[in-house]
């Protein structure tokens, strides 16, 4: 028998389970051009939909004339808010407890806002039809600065005023001004202010984390198909949360949820852009119901950058207090958050500023206070987590800049300042001042490993020499050493405090073992490039002892997958990965009973070993999982139901807290402002590592998106609310030419509460990368008096910094 000669090591390797760099099963179709993205879908009689969009950032709509458009060949209908109003669909709820216009209802609040929806035969008729719709606008004063918006008499959202003109509470409590959305606080205000007032040293800084955009290579889109014969609506789309979309569509359309099937096919990157619900989805559904035909809506790139899901736009002021020796005693963080015309942030309900309250970072800071004010402006709505867990990039950027600013104030080395303030290994689980309980960590070990790997002291010596050479006129290039130690908070989350639109943020896995020993598992998440079909099969292989190659993973079809909240905020492995392990363990528990019956021993007398159950003390007596699977379907076993299936809905007891230590070495040409990244070292601790190859790929990708954000990527507006960066000409996406090679490294600190100890990794490199690139730029100018300059550090801004510091002679 093969099993008898195969070593245990070979049996483990044969499973391709957790810990191995299994090649991706997704790649065969993608490399051959056989991916199935939403725009690849073609249905009989399919129509297209597209939007007439506002050229103005704030304007009243006087009239919409569709007559000429309806005469354009190929144009079938033009929908406006008036057509949607009788259905109650001219507005829709946002994920943040606000409401948003589906089509402009009397006014527009941002450039690019959806004004009318043309239903046409093909894309070309759409372009012709849009051009023929005549809209009369009456321009209104534009507010693009949140601080000015909070002082302005101009009311952006008349719909939120009471009849007597007073300002009722919003979804997150009292509103201070008609353009104010919420105030959210965490921590203790008075004790924190007292600590700061009485501290030896206080460093203060104001920083703007600019508005940017996730910009996946595939834009958002959908195909809605109402089958009037069976009363069933099928909605294909680029949805990062297909089940949540199904529930939302049911709630706002009145179609019973069992009659709605939402399918996320292959998704060309998400990064948070595809979490929310957009007017395009609603209009396409309405158009399909009205016409009885499938209707496709696909954003173009300009639509994407201008209207769906911006990220960041946080104005942050920080004060950090410390002893003379550098021990941090308190932090105060005050944020003015620009949310645009509607509050459409994608955050768990109780967290209108996401997990910004992780802004004490990796440090043992006894006292802290955070206040965030959300503000309406004439910009696009959104506020999504661009490759991060809810606002964690902002939080980590804040604290990792404040540490640097404090180091300057103390005239201390920033690496040492971090080291003396880290939460110590023995302090975990650690209760942070702003509320979170960090599950595990070993920061000192990771930090020391990182600094040693890059020869930190050597780098500082080289930098000091470079400064001397610069001052002596021997070079025009400065050297920056960017440091970052970050702690992420991912895996949202425990149902007790995490929900989206009231839906608890658990996740799920359902497994069916086939008689011949292969399996299919379905999850409530949806891959957008993360390789779930590869890695979740690895988790299962290790848990149930069937080869990963014999396990199909399926996601994204709400008719077949169990309910889950989708993929964003690095929640797939922490939540659905846990559900997968737990469902696998249910399979194993039943398999144990079947094995015991087949081996004619008591249940407790068999034990699981790699791919089989063996009699304890007699390993030669065993039944493989293959044999057990077959028995489950072909034998009548007393007291055991036939079949071998399991489902698990996993409600995580806590978040997971991946962390990492990054170092960036950068050379900056003072005269051109061009930064060249000479070296980037990234140590990530994501707990148990499922697939090292995929982890490394995620780190490369996350760092590159971090490079983009730190060094140039921005959604910029002019004073009139015009988007200045609406195409890829102006919106920076790094190419192979600008991107360095990265060195990756790791430590492993498993999560104590996760069934397999995994913590999630997809977003860590972005969260840690942005401050690391930024700190490198800032560090280069530190010897010349720089404390802080705002991102993005594009060539012009870097040149300007050099100029302002008098480095151009």
């Amino acid at each position, binding site marked *: 028998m093969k099993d008898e000669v195969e070593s245990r090591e070979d049996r483990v390797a044969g499973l391709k389970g957790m810990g191995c760099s299994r090649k991706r099963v997704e790649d065969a179709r993608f*490399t051959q051009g056989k991916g199935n993205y939403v725009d690849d879908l073609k249905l009989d009689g399919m129509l297209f939909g597209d939007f007439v969009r506002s050229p103005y950032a704030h304007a009243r709509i006087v009239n919409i004339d569709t007559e000429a458009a309806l005469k354009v060949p190929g144009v079938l209908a033009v929908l406006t808010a008036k057509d949607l109003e009788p259905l109650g669909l001219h507005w829709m709820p946002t994920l943040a407890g606000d409401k948003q216009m589906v089509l402009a209802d009397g006014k527009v609040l941002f450039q690019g806002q959806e004004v009318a929806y043309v239903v046409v035969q093909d894309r070309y008729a759409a372009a012709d039809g849009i051009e023929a719709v005549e809209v009369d606008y009456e321009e209104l004063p534009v507010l693009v600065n949140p601080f000015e918006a909070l002082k302005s008499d101009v009311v952006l959202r008349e719909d939120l005023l009471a009849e007597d003109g007073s300002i009722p509470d919003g979804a997150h409590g009292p509103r201070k001004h008609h353009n104010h959305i919420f105030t959210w606080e965490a921590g203790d205000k008075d004790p924190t202010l007292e600590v700061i007032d009485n501290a030896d040293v206080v460093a203060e800084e104001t920083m703007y984390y600019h508005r940017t955009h996730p910009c996946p290579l595939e834009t958002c889109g959908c195909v809605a198909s109402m089958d009037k014969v069976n009363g069933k609506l099928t909605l294909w789309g680029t949805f990062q949360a297909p089940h949540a979309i199904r529930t939302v569509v049911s709630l706002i359309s009145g179609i019973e949820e069992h009659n709605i099937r939402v399918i996320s096919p292959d998704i060309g990157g998400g990064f948070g852009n595809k979490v929310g619900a957009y007017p395009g989805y609603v209009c396409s559904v309405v158009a399909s119901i009205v016409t009885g035909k499938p209707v496709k809506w696909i954003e173009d790139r300009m639509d994407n950058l201008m209207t769906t899901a911006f990220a960041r736009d946080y104005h942050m002021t920080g004060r950090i207090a410390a002893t003379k020796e550098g021990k941090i005693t308190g932090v105060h963080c005050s944020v003015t958050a620009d949310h645009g015309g509607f509050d459409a942030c994608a955050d768990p309900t109780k967290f209108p500023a996401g997990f910004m309250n992780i802004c004490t970072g990796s440090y043992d800071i006894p006292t802290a206070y955070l206040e965030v004010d959300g503000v309406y402006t004439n910009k696009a709505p959104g506020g999504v987590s661009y490759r991060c867990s809810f606002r964690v990039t902002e939080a980590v950027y804040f604290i990792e800049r404040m540490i640097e600013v404090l180091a300057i104030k103390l005239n201390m080395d920033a690496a040492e300042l971090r080291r003396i303030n880290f939460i110590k290994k023995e302090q975990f689980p650690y209760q942070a001042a702003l509320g979170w309980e960090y599950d595990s960590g070993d920061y000192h070990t990771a930090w020391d490993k990182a600094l040693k790997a890059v020869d930190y002291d050597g780098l500082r010596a080289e930098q000091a020499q470079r400064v001397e050479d610069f001052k002596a006129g021997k070079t025009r290039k400065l050297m920056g050493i960017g440091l970052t130690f970050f702690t992420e908070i991912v895996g949202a989350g425990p149902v007790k405090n995490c929900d989206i639109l009231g839906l608890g943020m658990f996740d799920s896995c359902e497994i069916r073992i086939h008689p011949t020993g292969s399996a299919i598992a379905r999850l409530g998440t949806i891959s957008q490039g993360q390789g779930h079909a590869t890695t979740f099969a690895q988790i299962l292989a290790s848990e149930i002892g069937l080869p990963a190659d014999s396990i199909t993973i399926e996601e994204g079809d709400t008719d077949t997958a169990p309910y889950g909240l989708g993929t964003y905020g690095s929640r797939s492995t922490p939540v659905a990965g846990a559900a997968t392990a737990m469902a696998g363990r249910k399979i194993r528990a039943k398999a144990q009973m079947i094995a015991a019956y087949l081996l004619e021993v008591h249940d407790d007398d068999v034990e699981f070993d790699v791919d089989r159950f063996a009699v304890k003390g007699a390993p030669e007596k065993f039944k493989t999982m293959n044999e057990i699977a077959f028995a489950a379907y072909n034998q009548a076993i007393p007291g055991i139901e036939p079949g071998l299936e399991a489902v698990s809905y996993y409600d995580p007891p806590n978040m997971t807290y991946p962390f990492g230590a990054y170092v960036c070495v950068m050379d900056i040409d003072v005269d051109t402002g061009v930064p060249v990244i000479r070296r980037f070292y990234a140590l990530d601790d994501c707990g148990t590592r499922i697939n090292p190859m995929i982890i490394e790929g995620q780190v490369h990708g996350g760092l590159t998106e971090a490079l983009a954000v730190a060094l140039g990527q921005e959604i910029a507006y002019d004073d009139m609310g015009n988007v200045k960066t609406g195409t890829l000409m102006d919106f920076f996406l790094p190419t192979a030419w600008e991107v360095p090679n990265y060195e990756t490294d790791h430590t492993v600190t498993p999560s104590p509460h996760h069934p397999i100890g995994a913590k999630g990794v997809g977003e860590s490199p972005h969260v840690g990368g942005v401050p690391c690139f930024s700190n490198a730029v800032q560090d280069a100018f530190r010897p010349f008096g720089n404390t802080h300059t705002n991102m993005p550090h594009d060539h012009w801004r870097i040149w300007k910094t050099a100029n302002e510091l008098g480095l151009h002679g």
Partner: protein
Amino acid sequence: MSKKQHYKITVNGKEEEFLAEPRELLIHTLRERLKITGPHIGCETSHCGACTVTVNGKSVKSCTVFVAQADGTEITTIEGIGSPDALHPLQEAFKEHHGLQCGFCTPGMIIRASKLLEEIPNPSEEEIRFGMAGNICRCTGYQNIVKSIQAAAAEMNSAKEAAE
């Protein structure tokens, strides 16, 4: 809308004849008319390269070429460079070296790389990075794409040597 014209193009060795408005973009001819959905649309402004195909031996971004400009040309898309039973070395290498994640840029990336390796059979890393700079990937950070192209080049060169 304008009058339809008669066009003839050869795609992946197959001759296609049809009537189309001259303003039809080549990417739509491929994707909508001919149902060749490997090339993707990422920007419609020539920046991202997801729509890259080979036209008369040159890498071309098909989102900014009118079908009228492509009349009479020979076009190769990702569908034309390998088959499930005989993958192109680049297709193998991208799988082997994790040169893709979401897969959306991959068809354009591979078809461009195939041209690059014809232009420079043994490229340096710098030449690869420069030669691929017209194709944007949002997932991989390019490191593994570079590795994949290097591996494919090595494979193709050794196969060529063996044949000679």
